[in-house]
């Protein structure tokens, strides 16, 4: 195994004190930025870029990488404890993580997210090391046509996340798709639904809506329950992570890691979509789908493994081809140029030591984060003992600063507050928030890729079935949509979407 030997050399090189210190610095900053609502990995890497560039060489990229995967660890913290997604890829963690915290199992949920992040990270690094060349070829095979098919497949999987009344789920999805259209339409060049405001020209940042709709709404709707009743009693044991959870969720961990890796590799898709697909798949494959959303460890394990593994997957096109597939890796590419390297297909052959040392630092950082977060877990979970009359003002202040920091704009903060207010009405009327968020994330990908495909084909719809990958994905889509119907008709199984509450 040549890659293993090379990785081992890389790990040894990355134990150099200076590189190690920069790796840990990046990981800790990433943890912090991931946990702060509003700021995600892209903002984190951009913020650290000028500082990291000063470290030079391996240390600089090790630090930036640390910010990236560190934020994947950190994002879960606020999602679980407060129901506020720290960044976009941790939204799905809210669905099961937050109910677990409310049941008094915050420590278990946090522990599971740490295990999942570690396993996802470990398998992601393994994939990065062993499969990067064939996988980069697979990533290139995905053009607009394939991406369209991929999005249809993703949406068909996600139909499982509807909520009680399917029609309200679809309405919420449509509203999310509409929110995704706000801003400059890149295909026609027309600004849509901006009301002439330059604040909306770039579209709605996902975090602005998600933090409002999940975080603030969770706070607003729990005012009655949490404030007027005494805080639920937690035992110390419930604050500790459990090793048995890692064993129990092994299949979700594996599934999340694999899905995260292969979805994360695709240019333009990213970790958020990977977590959504992974969560939906876990629910689809489960013998007891109705338990998802009520606070089970499996629902935390799948998306958390996926987002970590996706972060390494998305680095493959950057390191092997010199193509930044996501906003975060685009900033990392800026970092590579700033330390004097030319990202491109020759990076591996011209600077093998550099690349392997960076990969080695990933392995070290991933392991270090496990210890860091496990130590922090009881401490963080104890935050729930703070009475809400103090906790909520603090949390709201953090949200205000975090959302402000996205574009240094109070306009965004206003939008978040309005989204939180609208969320109360939606929650009370049973319009589920998850499909709305899915629409916001996946809608632009779907719309743009359909239109790109049709520009290429000059309006010919046949291309969607002429290309093998696209055809395969469309067949899979039909399959996914028909199986539950078939099972229902034959009376063998309930349709998850009808019964479950998300």
């Amino acid at each position, binding site marked *: 195994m040549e890659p293993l030997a090379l990785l081992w050399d890389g790990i040894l090189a990355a134990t150099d004190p200076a590189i190690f210190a920069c790796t840990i610095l990046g990981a800790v900053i990433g943890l912090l930025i991931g946990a702060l609502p509003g700021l995600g990995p892209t903002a984190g890497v951009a913020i650290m870029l000028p500082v990291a560039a000063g470290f030079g060489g391996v240390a600089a990229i090790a630090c930036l990488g640390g910010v990236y995967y560190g934020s994947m660890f950190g994002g879960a913290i606020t999602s679980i404890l407060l129901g506020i997604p720290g960044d976009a890829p941790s939204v799905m963690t809210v669905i099961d993580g937050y109910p677990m915290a409310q049941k008094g199992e915050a420590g278990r949920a946090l522990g599971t997210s740490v295990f999942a992040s570690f396993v996802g990270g470990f398998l992601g690094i393994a994939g990065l090391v062993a499969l990067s060349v064939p996988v980069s070829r697979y990533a290139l095979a995905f053009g*607009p046509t394939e991406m369209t098919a991929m999005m249809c497949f993703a949406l068909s999987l996600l139909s499982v996340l509807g909520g009680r009344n399917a029609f309200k789920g679809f309405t919420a999805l449509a509203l999310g798709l509409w929110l995704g259209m706000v801003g400059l339409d890149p295909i026609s060049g027309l*600004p849509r639904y901006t009301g002439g405001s330059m604040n909306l020209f770039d579209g709605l940042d996902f975090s602005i809506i998600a933090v409002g709709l999940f975080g603030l709404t969770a706070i607003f709707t729990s005012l009655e329950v949490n404030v007027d009743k005494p805080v639920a009693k937690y035992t110390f044991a419930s604050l500790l992570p459990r090793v048995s959870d890692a064993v129990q969720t092994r299949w979700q961990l594996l599934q999340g890691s694999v899905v995260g890796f292969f979805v994360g590799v695709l240019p333009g898709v990213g970790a958020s979509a990977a977590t959504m697909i992974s969560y939906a798949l876990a629910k689809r494959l489960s013998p007891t789908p109705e338990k998802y959303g009520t606070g089970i460890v499996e629902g935390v394990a799948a998306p958390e493994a996926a987002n970590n593994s996706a972060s390494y997957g998305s680095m493959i096109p950057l390191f092997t081809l*010199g193509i930044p597939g996501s906003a975060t890796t685009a900033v990392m590419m*800026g970092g590579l140029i700033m330390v004097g390297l030319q990202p491109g297909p020759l990076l591996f052959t011209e600077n093998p030591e550099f690349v392997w040392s960076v990969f080695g630092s990933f392995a070290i950082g991933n392991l270090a984060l496990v210890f860091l977060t496990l130590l922090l877990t009881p401490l963080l979970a104890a935050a729930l003992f703070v009475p809400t009359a103090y906790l909520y003002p603090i949390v709201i202040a953090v949200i205000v600063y975090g959302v402000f920091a996205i574009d240094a704009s109070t306009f965004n903060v206003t939008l978040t507050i309005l989204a939180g207010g609208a969320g109360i009405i939606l929650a009370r009327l049973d319009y589920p928030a998850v499909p709305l968020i899915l629409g916001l994330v996946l809608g632009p990908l779907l719309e743009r890729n359909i239109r790109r495909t049709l*520009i290429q084909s000059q309006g010919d719809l046949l291309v969607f079935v002429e290309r093998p990958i696209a055809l395969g994905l469309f067949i899979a889509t039909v399959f996914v949509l028909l199986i539950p119907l078939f099972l229902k008709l034959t009376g063998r199984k309930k349709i998850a979407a009808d019964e479950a509450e998300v």
Partner: protein
Amino acid sequence: MTYGLSNFVKHGRAVGLGLLTAAAIAVSAAAAEYPDKDIKMIIPFGAGGGSDTLARTIAGVIEEMKLIPVKILPENRTGGSGAVGYSAVAKEKGDPYHLATVSVSFFTTPLLGGSPVSYKDFTPLAAIAQSPYIMVVPTSSEYQKLDDLKKTPRFTTGTTGVVSDAALLAKMTSNALGIQIDSVPFDGEGEVMGALLGGHVNVGFLNPSEAMAQMKAGKLRPLAITSAERSPAFPDIPTFKELGYGEILHTQLRGLVMPADVPPEVVTYWEGVLQKVATSEQWKKQYIDRFHDIPDYVDAKGFKEVLERTNARYETMMKELGIIK
């Protein structure tokens, strides 16, 4: 920023006279001993991008060479496809302590009605490099030279955004060669490169730095370059002009602007500073050699003409596409 404006409107009348006096003093002071305080360089885009690197490199070189007695403080002001940052600069009318670099969005966002300010609200200072575009095809393609493209009636190319330099060049090349190159808008340079290498589009118009790495690796084959003369970084790539298509001439000028109505002495001052930057070893090492642009100094007058011409090109293109009336 919006608040600053509303403040100004509210108190503007009461202190209007005072402001005028103050402005007069500022101008005469500027003429005497400009610059006497730190200069803000607003970057309307995020850290790590092309505009950010350009702006910070210029600021770094000026500092390193000690060309001005004060500091340049780069600050990222993102949002609105550049509109937020550019309008923050433009509203400081007459203030010679605000700088910005130009970009494609400098023209396109205002034309699309997305910004309250346009290129007319700025004073061009000078340009210190030009960035040509290289027309490429994947190495696996059958086209060896530019005229080979005439064998096939239709191509597609990837661009970032529907109105961009790549889209503009696709249009120019289509007209000149009598073929059809349709532009497929993608969401970033990385996606464009992915589509090109994956064979989802056939031709590309790339920045020198993007093209260099892929050409060295043997993934892309250059056909022609859009500068007036061959680029020192790519001596083997013929210009469109050499190949008989002199009308295909379009480069992006890397230059600095200030808010409108800054005193002419300030413009002269900066022309001097930027001329020294353009010819310096530091600039060559830190920017030209890294991004493979063509070193070139263009004074304020020439830069202004280029800005006007570029804006007119985008405007015509948008009208042809039916985006604006």
